[in-house]
């Protein structure tokens, strides 16, 4: 109704009903209007009565949704796997567990690679966050969080800090020091505050900002140094379980997925939801951008993984099989984007040919649900974390 509302109580004749009453000084389109509170209420109701009832709004939203589907369908001239038929088929894949990282006392929930391609941070249900050297399997740092179910952890781009959080509803940043005897917990910095559990966190291109997603249905961008909320993203109608930042240096978008079966693409600067995809049939557990930034994949409890193209604004591929009935908890692309690794709740990791839509390998080895899968920054290996308390490096 109003661009800006400045309320200052003055007493005098109302512009509308001319009675002497306390006036609410409101500015409508930058013009000051001195109405009494009764007239302000009437004006508000009239704006609604001009046809913007809830029914007309609902009808308009239905027609807009139909128009959206129509627009999207018009451009659906061919399927991705049809276009990809002329590509060479991939050969046999032999990927084995090359390292097993043992040391967590409970389910591993999340992990992240450092940009130096050898360090890994992982977090588990018992509150422990461990930094490993993947080449030697040595533990370099260990922190005990004050909460259990640490569902999110991330390595800072500089490699000098890790962020983690979970049931404490916060995201905390721990600077890593070279001094092994130093108590990391003393340097802890609480950055994000949500009203429900933290499901995922990620540093942006610098150590200075963190993006978080939470069970309270929102995502938020925080300044690490001051702990200030820079931008919040509202639009999901249920818990947000996952997020991923667009890969390019200039990219200012990220995608999030949640229990409302929707995957939303957001503009980080304006907080605006720019695109939304709702084709999954159950919670979306993981979203990951394609390396070029033009598409993203999602893994869901409906046992499928799907590829959504951002420029075509639609789902372009489904990766599913009748024999796969357990949900996918985590997905990641190989460096070129040709392979999609999906960790499932049936203890396996499926490897898909992204373009042709066929499965190229199943990897066995974990003895419980695979909770997280991440390809290393240089693409030489990928790491999987599982509820069997271990992490495995495959190459």
């Amino acid at each position, binding site marked *: 109704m109003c661009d800006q509302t400045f309320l200052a109580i003055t007493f005098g004749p109302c512009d509308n009903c001319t009675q002497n009453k306390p006036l609410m000084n409101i500015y409508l389109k930058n013009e000051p209007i001195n109405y009494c509170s009764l007239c302000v209420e009437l004006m508000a109701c009239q704006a609604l009565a001009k046809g913007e009832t809830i029914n007309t709004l609902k009808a308009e939203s239905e027609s807009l949704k139909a128009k959206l589907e129509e627009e999207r369908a018009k451009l659906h001239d061919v399927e991705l796997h049809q276009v990809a038929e002329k590509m060479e088929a991939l050969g046999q894949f032999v990927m084995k567990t090359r390292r097993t990282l043992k040391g967590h006392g409970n389910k591993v929930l999340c992990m992240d690679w450092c940009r130096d391609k050898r360090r890994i941070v992982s977090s588990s249900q018992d509150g422990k966050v461990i930094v490993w050297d993947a080449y030697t399997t040595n533990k370099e740092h260990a922190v005990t969080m004050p909460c259990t179910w640490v569902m999110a952890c991330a390595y800072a781009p500089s490699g000098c800090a890790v962020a983690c959080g979970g049931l404490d509803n916060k995201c905390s940043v721990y600077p890593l020091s070279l001094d092994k005897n130093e108590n990391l917990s003393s340097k802890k910095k609480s950055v994000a505050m949500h009203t429900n559990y933290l499901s995922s966190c990620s540093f942006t291109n610098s150590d200075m900002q963190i993006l978080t997603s939470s069970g309270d249905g929102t995502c938020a961008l925080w300044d690490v140094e001051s702990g200030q909320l820079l931008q919040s993203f509202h*639009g999901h109608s249920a818990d947000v379980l996952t997020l991923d930042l667009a890969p390019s240096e200039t990219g200012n978008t990220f995608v999030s997925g949640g229990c409302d079966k929707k995957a939303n693409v957001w503009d980080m600067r304006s907080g605006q939801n720019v695109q939304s995809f709702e084709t999954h049939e159950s919670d979306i557990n993981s979203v990951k951008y394609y390396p070029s930034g033009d598409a993203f994949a999602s893994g869901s409890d409906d046992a499928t993984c799907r590829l959504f193209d951002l420029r075509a604004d639609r789902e372009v591929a489904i990766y599913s099989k009748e024999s796969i009935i357990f949900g996918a908890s985590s997905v990641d692309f190989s460096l070129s984007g040709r392979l999609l690794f999906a960790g499932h709740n049936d203890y396996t990791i499926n490897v898909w040919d992204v373009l042709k839509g066929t499965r190229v390998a199943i990897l066995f080895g974990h003895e419980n649900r695979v909770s997280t899968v991440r390809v290393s920054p240089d693409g030489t290996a990928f790491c999987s974390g599982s509820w069997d308390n271990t992490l495995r490096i495959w190459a």
Partner: protein
Amino acid sequence: MSSKQSSNNITQARRTVQQLRIEANIERIKVSKASADLMHYCSEHAKYDPLLMGIPTSENPFKDKKPCTIL
């Protein structure tokens, strides 16, 4: 109180309609073009993808190297 609830529903509905208007007006390209671009990216970068192409064991820090015998 009921007017506040109904005005909440109205603001929510209004927000949904505004969101849908924004989404309906974005520029879209054909799936054939989008797929061609994805394929192009894959082919361009395939040679740099160690998991796809396989790199020699000596260059992969995770693969165990065969022991060398010094004669």
